[in-house]
C-alpha cells in the first residue's frame, strides 16, 4: 500500500514500532544501525535466553518487514552514505535526545537542505523543546511523568507499570499516523516538514482524560487493587475464577448499569444472592449513593457477592456466559492463552515467518488491521545486523565489494 515510499529508520530502542507500522503497510523501511547493531538488539528476552544481536525478541517484535544497513553516523564516510540515501527517501525517523542529530549534521534543517520533500519524524521523551526536553528518561519514568502510573496498582503498594514497556510504543504508534498526516499534506504542497512527537503527551492519552480532572475541580481517580477508586466509590474489575481471574466491568449508570443488572440476575438464578440484591436499580445506584439512599459501603458487599460466585466458575465458563447473557466479563488471559485464542485462530491472526539462519520458523502477532484491498503482508523476518549492506550500499549506491570491505575494515559499516 505504501510501497512507493522509502523510510530511513534511524531510531534506537525508543522508536522502532513506528517504522514497523509503516513497513507493515508496505513501505520500504531501511533500518540504519550503527556498526555492530542497534542498542535495541541488546534488549531481551532472547531466543533460548542466549543473548546475541540477532536473537533479541525485542528487536524481532519491532523490525519485521524492515531491511538493515549499518553506518557509523558519527563519521564523515558514514554520513556521506546516509546523505545519498536521504536524497531518495520519503521519510526519516529518529529518536535521539534533542540536539544529538543536530550535532552530527543530521538535524531536520540539515536533512531538509538535502531533500526538502522529506518528512522527518522525531520521537523523544518530552518533545524537541521545553524545560524537560533533555531530561533523562526510561519507560517507568515516562509512565510516571504522564499520569497513568499513579492510577495503576494496589492501594497499599507503590504504583505499578505494565511489565512490557509501553511508553515508546504509545509514542511510536502515534508517530506513524503523524508521519502519514505530513505525507498527505506533502502530496498536495510538495514540501516535507518536521514531525515532533512527545512520548509524555502520547502516554497521557492513557489517563482516559483524568489528566484534565483537576482543571474542572473533579477529584483524581485513585489506584485500587484490580480496579479504581473514584471519590467515595471503590470499583473493582478483577475477580477470581476457579482457574485464574476475570475482568468484570462492574459499574453503574445508564450505559453499564444494565449489564451489571443482568450479571446480578444470573448470580441470583444460581443462588448466589437474594432477590433484593438482584432487584437493585443498577442504573441509578451511584445517584442513590450520592443522595444517601444507598451507602457507598454497599459496593463492597456486592463485590464480595460477585467474587464468591465467580470463584466457582472457570474463565471459559464466565466468557461463555458473557456471550450468551450479554455481560461485560473477560478472562484475564496469560500470554499462552492469548496465543491459543480461538478467536485469533479463527481470524488467522498469527503469522509464521521462517528464520532460516536459526533453522526455525517463528510465530508473530498478526496484521494490526485487516485492509480488504491491500492486506498487510509479512514479507520479511526482522533483518540481521547489516543484512542488506550489499543490496543497498552495493547494488543501489554502487559501492564495489572492495570498497564495502574497506569501509567495514574501517568500522564505517
Amino acid at each position: 500500500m505504501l510501497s512507493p515510499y522509502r523510510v530511513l529508520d534511524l531510531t534506537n530502542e525508543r522508536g522502532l514500532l513506528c517504522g514497523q507500522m509503516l513497513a507493515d503497510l508496505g513501505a520500504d523501511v531501511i533500518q540504519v544501525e550503527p556498526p555492530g547493531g542497534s542498542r535495541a538488539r541488546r534488549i531481551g528476552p532472547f531466543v533460548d535466553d542466549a543473548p546475541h544481536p540477532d536473537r533479541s525478541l525485542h528487536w524481532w517484535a519491532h523490525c519485521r518487514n524492515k531491511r538493515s544497513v549499518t553506518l557509523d553516523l558519527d563519521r564523515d564516510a558514514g554520513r556521506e552514505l546516509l546523505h545519498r540515501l536521504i536524497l531518495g527517501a520519503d521519510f526519516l525517523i529518529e529518536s535521539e535526545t534533542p540536539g544529538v542529530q543536530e550535532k552530527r549534521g543530521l538535524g531536520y534543517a540539515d536533512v531538509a537542505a538535502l531533500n526538502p520533500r522529506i518528512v522527518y519524524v522525531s520521537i523523544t521523551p518530552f518533545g524537541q523543546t521545553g524545560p524537560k526536553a533533555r531530561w533523562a528518561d526510561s519507560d517507568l519514568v515516562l509512565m510516571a511523568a504522564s499520569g497513568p502510573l499513579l492510577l495503576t496498582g494496589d492501594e497499599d503498594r507503590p504504583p505499578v507499570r505494565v511489565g512490557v514497556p509501553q511508553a515508546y510504543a504509545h509514542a511510536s504508534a502515534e508517530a506513524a499516523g503523524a508521519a502519514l498526516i505530513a505525507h498527505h499534506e506533502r502530496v498536495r504542497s510538495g514540501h516535507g516538514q518536521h514531525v515532533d512527537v512527545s512520548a509524555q503527551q502520547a502516554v497521557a492519552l492513557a489517563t482516559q482524560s483524568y489528566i484534565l480532572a483537576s482543571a474542572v475541580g473533579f477529584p483524581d481517580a485513585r489506584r485500587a487493587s484490580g480496579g479504581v477508586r473514584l471519590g467515595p466509590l471503590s470499583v473493582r474489575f478483577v475477580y477470581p475464577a476457579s482457574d485464574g481471574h476475570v475482568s468484570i466491568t462492574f459499574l453503574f449508570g445508564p450505559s453499564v448499569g444494565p449489564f451489571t443488572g443482568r450479571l446480578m440476575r444470573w448470580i441470583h438464578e444460581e443462588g448466589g444472592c437474594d432477590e433484593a440484591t438482584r432487584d437493585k436499580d443498577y442504573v441509578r445506584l451511584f445517584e442513590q449513593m450520592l443522595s444517601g439512599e444507598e451507602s457507598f459501603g454497599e459496593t463492597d458487599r456486592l463485590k464480595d457477592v460477585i467474587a464468591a460466585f465467580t470463584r466457582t466458575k472457570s474463565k471459559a465458563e464466565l466468557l461463555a456466559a458473557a456471550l450468551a447473557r450479554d455481560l461485560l466479563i473477560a478472562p484475564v488471559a496469560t500470554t499462552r492463552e492469548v496465543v491459543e485464542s480461538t478467536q485469533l485462530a479463527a481470524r488467522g491472526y498469527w503469522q509464521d515467518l521462517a528464520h532460516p539462519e536459526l533453522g526455525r520458523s517463528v510465530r508473530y502477532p498478526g496484521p494490526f488491521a485487516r485492509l480488504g484491498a491491500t492486506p498487510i503482508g509479512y514479507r520479511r523476518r526482522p533483518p540481521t545486523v547489516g543484512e542488506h549492506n550489499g543490496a543497498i550500499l552495493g547494488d543501489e549506491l554502487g559501492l564495489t565489494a572492495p570498497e564495502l570491505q574497506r569501509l567495514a575494515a574501517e568500522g564505517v559499516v
Partner: protein
Amino acid sequence: MAASAALADVKVLDLMWAIAGPAATRVLADYGATVVRIESTTRTDICRTVAPFHELPAEPESAVLFQNANAGKHMMTLDLGNTAGREVFLDLVRWADVVCEAYTAGTMRALGIGYEALRAVNPSLVMLSTCLMGQTGPLATYAGFGNLAASMTGFGNLCGWPDRAPAGPFGAYTDYVAPRFSVAALLAALDHRRRTGEGQHIDVAQAEASIHFLGPAMLDYTVNGRVQTPNGNTDPEYAPHGVYAASGEERWLAIAVHDDTGFAALARVMGQAALAEDPRFATADARRAHRHALDERVGAWVATQDAPAAETALQAAGIAAALCASSADLVADPQLAHREHVQMVEHPTYGTTPIEGSRFRLSRTPAAAHASAPTLGRDNQYVLETILGYDEERVTELVVAGALG
C-alpha cells in the same frame, strides 16, 4: 487556515462512539479534516456518562472525556432507522472520503448500511470498522470496553505484583492503543486510493492491534515457551528500578538507573557516595542480584524527600526520575504547558472546558485550535444546508419526518 491544514481536503463521516473510535477521528480533525459525527438522540455516546465531569450529577455535556475526544468535529443527530434519515446518511456517504464506525460487528450490515451497500453509492469509499475483537470470528459480537480487551490480550496479567491478583492497567487500556493503528491504516488507505482510485474496508480489532504493544512477551511465549507473569516494577536490566514513597500523602517518585555511572550519580545525590563502592551495588549485575537491599536504601532516602525537589535534583544529575504525576501536577507541568497540551477552550455551558492538544507537532502545518465538542445536534443545519446543499423546505421535511431524532 483551513486551506493550509494538512488534511483540509479529507472528509470524514464519523459513526464512532466510546473512546477508541472518536479518539482516532479527533486526530484527523486536529489536522483539518472535516469530520461530521452522527449521534443518535436516544442512544447517546457512552462517554457522556464517564468521569471526570464538570459537575455531578452529570449532564450529557458535562463529561470531560467526551469533550476531549470530540473537539473539532461537526455534530449531527440522525435516526438511521428512519427512511428519510437513511437518505440523508447516504448523501453523506456520497460526500465522504472516509466512513468510520465503531458499532458491534454486524450492526451496520443489519441496518442495511454495511460496506457493500455504502460502496454501491460511493465506489471509492474508505470505510473503517473498529470493535474489540474484529468483524469476524466467534467473538466478533463480543461488545465491551478496552478494559476487557486489555484482559483478553494479556495486559491485565502483565501488570501487578507476583504475590497478588493482577492489577491490570488503568481504565479501558486498549481504547488508547488502537486509535493509533486506525489513524495509520486510514491514511495509508487514502494514499492508496489517491494513486489507484481504489477504496476499501478496514477492520481494526482493538485486541489485534494492541497485541503489538506486547510483542516481546508474545514472542517469549511463541519462541521460548515462557509465560511472563506480573513482576511489580522489577526490570530485567535496570536496578534500582522502582517507585518509592516520598514525604507527603500519595507522593511517589519513579527512579530508573541503567549503568554504573548513573548509580554513582544517584549515590552522590543521596549523599551516600560510598554506596557505589559497596560490592553489593558496584556493578549492574550486583545491583540486580541485590535489588531488594538496594530498594530499601533508595526507598529510605526518598521517604525523607520532597518529591518535586528530589526529581529536580536527580534529573540535574542526569538520572531518569520523575514524580508520579497527578492531574494537578500535569495541569501545572511546565513541559506540558510549553507543548500546549492542556487547552482551555470555549464551552456553551461551562464557559470553558479543558481538552488535550495534539500529541505531536507538525512544523509547517500545525494542529488547529478548537472549541469544545459541539452540543448534541448543534450542526444539523450546517451539515444539511452547507455540506449537503439541502434547501430550507427539505430540512423542514426531515424535521417533520423525525429523521434527525
